[in-house]
């Protein structure tokens, strides 16, 4: 374990597109980051999955580097962040949200594959660095950010969270108090 009290800054900031694909055989979703000027929209088979293009949005990727010890944490496995407003009693993220006092906000770091079929999610090192980075920059005295990996989510696809993504930001969204789809998750 490092003895350094890290002071993180963003590095390797790259702009591109977050491309979302879906398998029409099993319904699984997957996403990847493309830095190409025009994101690929190919359909292809990969094992039992047949992936089709579902959409893309402009996105930014970054890594975190410590200005004190020089270590860099690769955040390539982070495809996005989502503010959790979870009320699901069976969801681990929801439980964390309900345990927090006023001023503490829970964000979910989203990995590429919401099904976690291959057992992969955002690394523990990445989660630690994100927590330290966002909290080190906060100036409000009673405010705290908690970042958790999306493997703790019961279902990302059903989650009532607000994804920080540049997709559908000019759309109207329905009122969920009348049973519509979750707001901000479109």
């Amino acid at each position, binding site marked *: 374990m490092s003895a350094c009290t890290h002071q993180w800054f*963003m590095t390797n*900031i790259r702009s591109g597109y977050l491309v979302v694909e879906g398998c029409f055989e099993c319904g699984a979703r997957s996403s990847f980051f493309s830095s190409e000027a025009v994101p690929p929209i190919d359909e292809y088979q990969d094992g039992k999955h047949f992936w089709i293009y579902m959409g893309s949005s*402009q*996105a*930014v990727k*970054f890594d975190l580097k410590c200005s004190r010890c020089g270590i860099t944490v690769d955040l390539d496995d982070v495809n996005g*962040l*989502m*503010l959790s407003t979870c009320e699901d009693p069976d969801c681990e993220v929801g439980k964390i949200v309900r345990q927090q006092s006023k001023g503490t*906000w829970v*964000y979910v770091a989203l990995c590429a594959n919401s099904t976690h079929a291959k057992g992969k999610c955002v690394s523990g090192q990445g989660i630690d660095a994100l927590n330290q980075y*966002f909290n080190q*920059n*906060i*100036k*409000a005295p009673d*405010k705290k*950010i908690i970042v958790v990996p999306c493997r703790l989510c019961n279902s990302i696809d059903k989650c009532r969270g*607000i*994804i*920080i*993504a*540049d997709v559908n*930001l*000019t759309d109207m*969204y329905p009122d969920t108090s009348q049973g519509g789809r979750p*707001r*901000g998750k479109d």
Partner: protein
Amino acid sequence: MEVSEIMEKTGLKAINQFKDKEVEGVYISDMVSDIITGAKANSILITLQTHKSLIAAANLVDVAMIVFVKGKKPADDVVELATKAEIGLFTSDLDAWSFAKKLTELGLN
């Protein structure tokens, strides 16, 4: 310079109840993914974007206040989330450039 002083000197209209705090910088963006890599804590965010995702991004980087330019106003649930996050929301009839010029005249940049 504090939020209330900026409001008064630039003719902003407050949209929600805001907490007065020291403002330390300015950032202009309409992309939420850009905001988390560019905006700094206690800054003013100038934008045309009124989606709820904007508040999620601004809260993550501890933005002090958001100014919606060209008279834009967000929906009630967006205002509610910003109020909970203690982010002051304001509207200006000016465009982003004209409003930014006012801020530089006040010494903010």
